[in-house]
């Protein structure tokens, strides 16, 4: 059964780091460039994230995500370079259009920020199983009911997808038009979505009942089938990051 998670199984140091640390890393990668806004720092953070992705042996998997993001970023660069208000300094001309320095620098800031977010997120997403992440959070105190909701999304969506495939085929066999002008296409939308939703909602009632009789709302403190996973270096890495953030704040205030 297909999964919608991007997790990739690899044997790397990063995979052995605990999920909470990776989440804190995302925060770290976002905060530092905000505290110390400079291109050098942003490039540095991005560089570190990309390096970590290489170390985790998952860099190739980031390509589809980065490509999509690049497409939008290119339009940002063009539009900001051409049209940003307060554009003054012309860098080069292309016929009647002029590319301005301010706009391009602004687009660069955006590009770096977006790529920072994406790459730090990818570290978490590509090297962590969703169920491990949720279990780590639940052990730290998140409600197990919410934990259940998050993990079940990953299984329930592929189930709904295959049910939808069946319904689509059935509807088309009954002669439903799916090509044509916009109105035709909008009209096709509801008969495709309707049965899937109704079926899913009826299932939620049955699933809720089945969960209840499995002690879902038990007041007893939850226990775990597996031993708590010990992650290497979690504390160490978190302390390092904390120190760097404090250092950055100090630098910002005094430099």
């Amino acid at each position, binding site marked *: *059964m297909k999964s919608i998670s991007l997790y990739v199984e690899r044997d790397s140091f990063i995979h052995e780091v605990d999920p909470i640390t990776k989440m804190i890393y995302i925060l770290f990668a976002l905060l530092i460039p905000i505290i110390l806004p400079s291109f050098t720092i942003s490039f540095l953070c991005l560089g570190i994230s990309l390096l970590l992705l290489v170390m985790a042996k998952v860099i190739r998997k980031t390509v589809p995500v980065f490509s999509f993001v690049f497409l939008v970023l290119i339009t940002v660069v063009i539009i900001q370079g051409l049209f940003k208000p307060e554009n003054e300094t012309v860098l080069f001309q292309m016929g009647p259009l002029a590319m301005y320095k301010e706009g391009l620098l602004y687009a660069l800031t955006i590009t770096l920020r977006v790529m920072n977010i994406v790459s730090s997120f990818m570290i978490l997403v590509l090297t962590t199983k969703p*169920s491990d992440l949720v279990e780590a959070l639940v052990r730290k105190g998140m409600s*197990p009911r919410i934990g*259940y909701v998050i*993990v*079940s999304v990953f*299984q*329930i969506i592929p*189930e709904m997808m295959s049910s939808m495939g069946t319904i689509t085929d059935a509807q088309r066999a009954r002669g439903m038009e799916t090509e044509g002008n916009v109105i035709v296409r909008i009209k096709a939308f509801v008969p495709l979505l309707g049965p899937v939703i109704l079926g899913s909602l009826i*299932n939620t009632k*049955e*699933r*809720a*009942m*089945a*969960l*209840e*009789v*499995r*002690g*879902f*709302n*038990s*007041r*007893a*403190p*939850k*226990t*775990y*089938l*597996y*031993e708590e996973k010990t992650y290497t270096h979690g504390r160490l890495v978190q302390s390092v990051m904390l120190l760097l953030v404090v250092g950055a704040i100090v630098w910002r205030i005094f430099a």
Partner: protein
Amino acid sequence: MKKIIVEGLKYKYPLSDTLALADLSFEVSEGEFIGIIGENSAGKSTLCQALVGLVPHFYKGAYGGKVFVDGLEVKSHSIAEIALKVGMVFQNPFTQVTGSKMSVYEEIAFGLENIGLPRLEIIERTNYVLNLLKIEKVKDHNPFDLSGGQMQRMAIASIIAMKPDILVLDEPTSQLDPAGSEEVFSAIQKLSKQGITVILAEHKMEKVARYCDRVLLLNNGKSVDFDSPEKVFSRKDLEDHGVVAPVYTRVCKALGVKMAASDYYPVTLEDAERALRGRME
């Protein structure tokens, strides 16, 4: 003390004008295998759900009377508390899969984690029920990748792992093929032989006749009869209550052949064969 005591049970779903259960009273002893039969809106599912607390706690609605399971009053305890005494298996194998676990093994452990058992006990009980329901072969499979019969056996395993003394099953084989059905009935019979009190709501009358000690016939939320299969299926007014007798009984009724020295018709193949042979000599 009796395992299940139902006294004057009445229930009305929210938004409904009629009673789904109308003044039901009966008792079940430990270890009995009870069948619940009746036409489609007779109240079989509602009664099953009333034994585990889904009625009234899940639906709310209007509730009257008392239900005691193993000494616990359903009205004043939560579904999770009652789940330690009574387990329930539903019709649809798919919707009983939690969707939050990647293997059959973990899926069975889910309920045990919820009730807070220590790890070693979880492992012990899970291994036990995997073996009992004959699904160890698939213990590492994804729960959605099983056949219907296997999925239902996994559902039964997950419930039995919680060690209830009473097991309620609401038409557990209606969505399964014949092979899957047989697997499930065979598992249920095994559990009954171990002393578990079984309540089975069913349409497959031949199975009811074969396995049940007593049969409860419901109509419009009321109890019409609660007696041995022979007595209930021999009733002349069976069809008025929307129930079709086992095929062996129908044949014998048509031929007018009752069991030897009895006022009742046979309900199983073996009894029918014996009675018909007796007639032929």
